[in-house]
């Protein structure tokens, strides 16, 4: 059950409450620790709880709007995307599955799909390729690869140093904390206020990008 106090008093500037869902498979706890938004979605799904939903709305709607304006370049379509996305969150909360990813990832994928279908309809291509064809809803089983280990050696050898600066800033920051400051994934997650799963994702992406920079595209 949701602790109601967990849903009050959070505002946009405070990121300390960001979820820490998706525990790694090599930790002892088998159950992912649910963050605030994952719990809120659960309460919305089960109890149609308007207060929990209003908290989600107040946090995500303005951020989706900023994202929409960046993608569409205008406020009207951005707001249409926000409304459609947040309506889906309200109506389909029961489909959210915390074991497959964070609340923010689920909401992002809904917004992406809404945006894709809006653009398609605008071009009156209603019969063609749709978001449902392109993105399977979280049905791919989580792959827990170990391809990161083999790269530790390269990193130690500083072979990748010249490529490090070319990483996207968010990925580089996580890499510096893990490989240079030798912090644990959990520490980085807490320090940056991002989900543990995202720390791991960013490391895997950065490693793949470094490998691509050194080896050329996978083939």
């Amino acid at each position, binding site marked *: 059950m949701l602790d109601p106090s967990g849903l009050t008093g959070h505002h946009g500037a405070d990121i300390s409450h960001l979820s820490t869902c998706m525990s790694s498979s090599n930790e002892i706890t088998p159950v992912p620790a649910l963050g605030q938004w994952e719990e809120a979605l659960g309460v919305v799904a089960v109890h*149609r709880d308007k207060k929990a939903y209003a908290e989600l709305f107040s946090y995500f*709607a303005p951020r989706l709007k900023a994202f929409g304006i960046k993608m569409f370049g205008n406020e009207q379509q951005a707001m249409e995307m926000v409304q459609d996305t947040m309506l889906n969150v309200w*109506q389909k909360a029961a489909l959210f599955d915390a074991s497959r*990813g964070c609340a*923010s*990832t689920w909401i992002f994928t809904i917004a992406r799909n809404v945006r894709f279908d809006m653009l398609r309809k605008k071009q009156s291509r209603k019969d063609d390729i749709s*978001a449902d*064809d392109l993105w399977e809803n979280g049905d*791919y089983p989580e792959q827990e690869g170990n391809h990161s280990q083999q790269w530790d050696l390269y990193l130690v050898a500083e072979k990748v140093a010249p490529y490090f600066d070319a990483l996207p800033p968010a990925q580089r920051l996580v890499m510096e904390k893990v490989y240079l400051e030798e912090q644990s994934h959990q520490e980085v997650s807490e320090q940056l206020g991002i989900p543990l799963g995202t720390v791991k994702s960013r490391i895997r*992406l950065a490693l793949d990008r470094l490998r691509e920079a050194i080896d050329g595209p996978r083939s």
Partner: protein
Amino acid sequence: MAHVVKFHPSLSLLEQYSEGTLTPEVALVVAAHLDFCPHCQSLHRDIEADLACSLAQQPAAAAEGQDWQQMLEAIVGTTAAAPVQKVVANEVSLQVGDHQFKLPRSLQRIAQKRSKWLSLGGIATAKLPGTADHHLSLLCINTGTEVPLHTHKGMEITLVLAGEMVDEMGRYAAGDLIINTPDHTHTPRNLSDEPCLCLSVLTAPLEFKQGLTRLLNPLQRFFY
């Protein structure tokens, strides 16, 4: 699908796919590649988590004021969607001549909207809904057949869906994604004893290069 996929989209192509900014036809080819490739599925999920986290962390003004309040009330005034039963669609297979192919999930719906198969030599092609800029089609290359040496005026993306083919650059099997730009020239061949089914996106017609096959150039539309 025991075959290990060897030819993958670049990370930047995957990023645009995950973000939803690729052209639909190109996105569909990437989606079909993911249906074959656990490695790229996993990267795709990582990219989604990364993008979503950036979205959730950006600063934004609180949702205060009448507009937001009205939107919120309109939304919570609606009832929950009926529990969605996962539609287990009948798996669509594709019949080409007397050969049947299984299709990846992402192509199941769109493949039903294909045009009639047209055959020329050992090659059959059927168009899928595309746009003026991006022609999407299925291509079936028979055993022992080669597509004459050609170059591309635009970009050609090919995904092998079943069977095998080779060209000057390598050997490709189910799930392999091949991207050719105007500076590539190649002669895809099917040397195996099964037909090879491909999904192809072209941004401009092929141009045939050698001897008599140049006579094919008026037939470019067949491949486009």
